[in-house]
């Protein structure tokens, strides 16, 4: 079974690398390894499990030489089991990924934890 290393980085917290098989989600693999991530619906509707992609196969946004900001593209890093309904196109363009329904296609590094979820929306009146 092919697997990829997904490095989970909690903002201002620990880092943990999990080997994720091609037929399982990042959330499932993390739980199998005895770890935890925030989650809610486990179907891609609620956004509780969201992570932010930092690096794919050793390439980060800072390495982007094309200027189109697509060096770290979620499509290069993950396949989804079903549509990520909780994410708007702008979120996907910014590298946000729903870890309850995403399986890795490459080694990657992802920012995780509840703080990432709170990045999706802000206070619209402030």
């Amino acid at each position, binding site marked *: 079974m092919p697997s990829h290393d997904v490095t989970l980085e909690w903002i201002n*917290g620990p880092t943990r690398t999990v080997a994720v098989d091609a037929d399982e989600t990042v959330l499932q693999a993390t739980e199998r390894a005895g770890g935890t991530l925030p989650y*809610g619906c486990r*179907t891609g509707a609620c*956004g509780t499990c969201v992570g932010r992609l930092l690096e794919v196969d050793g390439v980060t946004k800072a390495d982007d030489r094309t200027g189109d900001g697509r060096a770290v593209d979620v499509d290069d890093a993950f396949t989804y089991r079903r549509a990520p309904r909780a994410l708007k196109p702008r979120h996907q363009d910014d590298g946000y990924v729903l870890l309850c329904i995403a399986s890795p296609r490459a080694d990657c590094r992802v920012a995780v934890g509840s703080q990432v979820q*709170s990045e999706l*929306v802000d206070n619209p*009146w*402030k």
Partner: protein
Amino acid sequence: MSDANTNRSESESGHDHADHHHAGPGYATPQAAIEESERETLAYVMGLYVGTDIDEPDFVAVVDLDPDSETYCEIVDRVEMPARGDELHHFGWNACSSSCHVEGLERRHLIVPGQRSSRIHVIDTKDRRDPELVEVIEPEEVFEYDLSAPHTVHCVPDGKILLSMLGDADGELPGGFLELNDDFEIEGRWEPPGEIEMNYDYWYQPRQNVMVSSEWAAPATYQPGFDLEDVEDGKYGQQLHVWDWEEGTVEQTIDLGEEGLIPLEVRFLHTPESTHGFVGAALSSNVFHFWEEDGEYRAEKVIDFEAREHPDWDMPVPALPTDILISMDDRYLFGSNWLHGEVWMYDVSDPANPQRADSLSVGGHFGEVQEVQGRELAAGPQMVQLSLDGERLYWTTSLFSTWDDQFYPEEAERGSVMLKADVDPRKGTLELDEDFLVDFGECPAGPARAHEIRWPDGDCTSDVWQ
């Protein structure tokens, strides 16, 4: 406008009060609930860890409300859910006063849905201070009916249970209603699919053969957080649906327009003879009165909370009246303005013309009172609950985990509080009880959010009368 607007005779409703036999749960009448009930000494309160980095499940807290008890204002027990990620939100009983004629039926089991998980839990409260989780309906069972995101629980006369469901199996629209039987098994979908798109809260008035439901949005819209773009795109609700209660079909849809954005809690007057009720339109910061006249329902804005300027905000801050309730004697409407930081009471003796009686400025972004017993309040008043005698108003401060994080980020770090005001129904006044504080920030696993509140013997938002 007549308050005694009865369309159906008692014999038609199958509930003959001339020969009323009260052998089941609850109380024979709302007045009996006031006269025969004892003061609340325990509360069941939703407690949440979902959406935080605390690796714990959500829980039902048992809170001691007996002033003579050594554990007054403490969480004396916590019923933990079997899995994380639920977002416990609203909950309800297996039976209430609408089944007061059903011999052998008891108000004993709490139906506790997970808003995010779609998992439905059943808690046996036979031992009130030590309730037990006894049944779990897994999300996959719910998805089979192309429904998700359970919200409001009401018991239906004769032991069945009805839950409003806000989404389809994908967390998109349409939502609908799920019915459980008295063994807590899924009976099926209550209504023919497609009667409504958006769903949220509902209340039924069986003697009038009517139910009114409201609209939030698709779970995939509101669960990740509040995005103003979604409002502009018409993804949030502004309608009330008037149902034929017996048939489970929508008879009328009322568009409340821009003044009625996000109509949330629906409250009929408790007297079964009335067709009057109220719904709070949270985003527009208005309260609407609805009533039946000449065979159809109408709705009219009767309370309008003005947005306020805040030095730290770019735009005026809306009040966001997120919860309302009606006192058991149908005299007062209470509510909370979550963003402003206010609880209020209106005299609704004439429901078309509510008169402001009193309010408290507490918590939130404008509250005059920002700490109780030295505990800084991290958010505004949200879910309210009133004693059956109308003399004590309690509230908690969490709205919804992702929305809390947008408007009150400190709520996750500090946890919610449960507070209380003493009410004088004769004078129409509210007074903050500074001696009362339940601090969910002190939970052993870390700060928890707190949401809906219920009393073991029924409360002002649980019971319906035939």
